[in-house]
């Protein structure tokens, strides 16, 4: 089958959508499909969203292909007679983040008009698809709530699961993720103020903006946490990440209402390490069960500090949680065979 895989990206920002796209292309090709890709640059500026949607709608990608799989918004507005969606999130400012501190649309009639136009156009274009899948129950629920569209869940498997491994835990928990406000690395830093043990926090990831990095470094400096918090403010290689996960007590993933479980959680499970997350972290809660294969705490520093102390106090227990995380992976049926069969069925 000739398949176009379409997505969008912000130049120079490495994100989960690009990993999904690369992995999907490779897995399609491994199974004998002919694949070409269309990756379109987009801006998330509220006042540019509608014209970018129009731009994508005007483009021509359908010639010469049997199907198109669209991933990141708003690639689903591209036209194709056989459009399939692996929908990973909405333009969240216009949806579930509306009315939260992360709503970057202005209040008032103009912002509201743009929001409503996006929602209407999304519903129209999403409705053209022959098949709709999401990457999590959380996203499926939002699609049903906001656009009236039912979708099945296809959890994205890792591209190289075998590269994650276990080593005896050292004295730190590890938070690998893009440094940005809604991933809440600041929560991990503030937890370090309240821990009773000598547990350390290691944070690694490229900052979305200089401001995001400055916020974190300011908190570290303010509380004199240089010895307790290690900040690696850059993109780290997969090998580097695997090693830091392998030697950790556990992995932190603390986003606010994240769409999916996040690759970090899956990587931790493959490395047999527990995941610590928050009760409002969204999709990750589909994978992590408190006290079984990880810890789920209230999104506040003292609660998180308590969880970190527990892992540090009992590394054997921490490892047992990690073991059960690996077992839970098998129960979820996460595999590329399942993903490709569903997307092209």
């Amino acid at each position: 089958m000739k398949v176009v895989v379409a997505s969008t990206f912000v130049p120079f920002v490495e994100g989960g959508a690009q990993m999904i796209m690369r992995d999907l292309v490779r897995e399609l090709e491994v199974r004998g499909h002919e694949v070409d890709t269309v990756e379109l640059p987009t801006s998330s500026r509220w006042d540019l969203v509608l014209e970018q949607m129009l731009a994508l709608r005007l483009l021509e990608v359908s010639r010469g292909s049997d199907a198109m799989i669209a991933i990141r918004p708003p690639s689903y507005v591209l036209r194709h007679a056989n459009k399939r969606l692996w929908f990973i999130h909405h333009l969240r400012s216009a949806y579930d983040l509306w009315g939260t501190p992360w709503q970057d649309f202005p209040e008032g009639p103009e912002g509201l008009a743009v929001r409503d136009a996006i929602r209407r156009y999304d519903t129209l274009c999403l409705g053209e698809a022959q098949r709709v899948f999401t990457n999590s129950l959380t996203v499926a629920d939002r699609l049903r709530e906001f656009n009236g569209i039912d979708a099945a869940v296809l959890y994205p498997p890792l591209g190289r699961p075998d590269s994650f491994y276990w080593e005896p835990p050292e004295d730190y928990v590890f938070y690998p993720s893009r440094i940005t406000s809604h991933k809440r690395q600041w929560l991990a830093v503030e937890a370090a103020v309240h821990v009773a043990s000598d547990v350390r926090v290691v944070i690694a990831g490229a900052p979305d903006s200089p401001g995001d990095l400055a916020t974190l470094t300011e908190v570290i400096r303010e509380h004199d946490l240089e010895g307790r918090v290690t900040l690696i403010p850059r993109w780290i290689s997969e090998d580097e990440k695997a090693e830091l996960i392998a030697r950790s007590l556990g992995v932190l993933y603390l986003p606010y209402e994240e769409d999916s479980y996040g690759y970090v959680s899956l990587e931790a499970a493959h490395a047999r390490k527990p995941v610590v997350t928050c009760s409002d972290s969204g999709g990750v809660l589909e994978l992590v069960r408190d006290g079984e294969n990880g810890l789920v705490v209230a999104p506040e520093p003292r609660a998180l500090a308590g969880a970190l102390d527990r892992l540090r106090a009992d590394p054997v227990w921490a490892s047992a949680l990690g073991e059960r995380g690996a077992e839970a992976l098998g129960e979820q049926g996460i595999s590329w065979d399942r993903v490709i069969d569903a997307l092209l069925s």
Partner: protein
Amino acid sequence: MRLAVLDSHAPFADRLLAGRRLCEALREHGHEAVHVGLPFAVDSAERIVDQMLAMRLLHLERAERAIGLRFPAYLVPHEHTVLWALRTGERALGEAGALVGGGSIGRSVRRSVFAAERTRLHAARTVYAPSAGVATGLQRRVGCSAEVLHPPPDDPGRFHCESYANGVLALGPSWAAPQRERVLAAVAQAHRAVRVTMAAPQAALGDLRVLADRLGVADRVEIVPQPAGEAERAQLLAPARALFTLDPDPDGPFTIEAFHARKGVLVLGEAGDGTLVRDGVSGRVVSSPEAAGAALDELTEDAAAAERYGAGGYSALHDGHVSWPSVVAALTR
């Protein structure tokens, strides 16, 4: 520097090799480079204009500079754009051929293409053209001066010369149908000793063989499928006597590859001032099938001349600084 390379392609038809190779070269020189491959397909005249508009509506964030390579991708706005016009609007219209046509809609589309291109080129910081011919076309059509910056092959090192033992190789873009017919006409004018291997798209092989038979040259012209990529072209070039280019641009990529393989180039058409192909130095430039037949005779009978033209072509590459480091230096200047 953070650089976004703007390229366009028809999915499953174009492979965006130059853009990807340019990104590699930029990274090798310490830059951050992102390849932005935008879809562009011509299925009707009107849709060309739609897609031009789409490009104008896109936004490039975080890039310090945009490097535009192909129409219409280079219409994407950016305040600091350098254009290296590897495919101009005129070329895209040429590839679209009959789909655009000469009627009122076709004329209107042509005007729109040239107007958009004129606006964009004049807003760019610098404009480079891949050959003297393209630079002349840009000057004539949109009044824009362009410096010539020849695109090197993806991997120049794979082009080499084994010998000059085989016949002349006729090679060019897949859409160059009229040029293939002119090659057959030229062979018909040459002596019986001339041997030519001509590559053509699979769909055209049958018709070309029938034509070769009708012209009485079937025993002298071997018509083979178009090589799939640079490696296959390098293999065909290595033992060839010379290249008979089917590219209307005498300094197109096939000529550059031939010069890397130390092969002279035969051009049936025009080669203006400043071209790499120079008559009697790096090949032969002739204007009629009869003259092309005579040039084929010369190349066949005089191996030393073929070798001399090849050496001339190879020197022209060095004199013209045709290399990836030169490309990176120019585009990041």
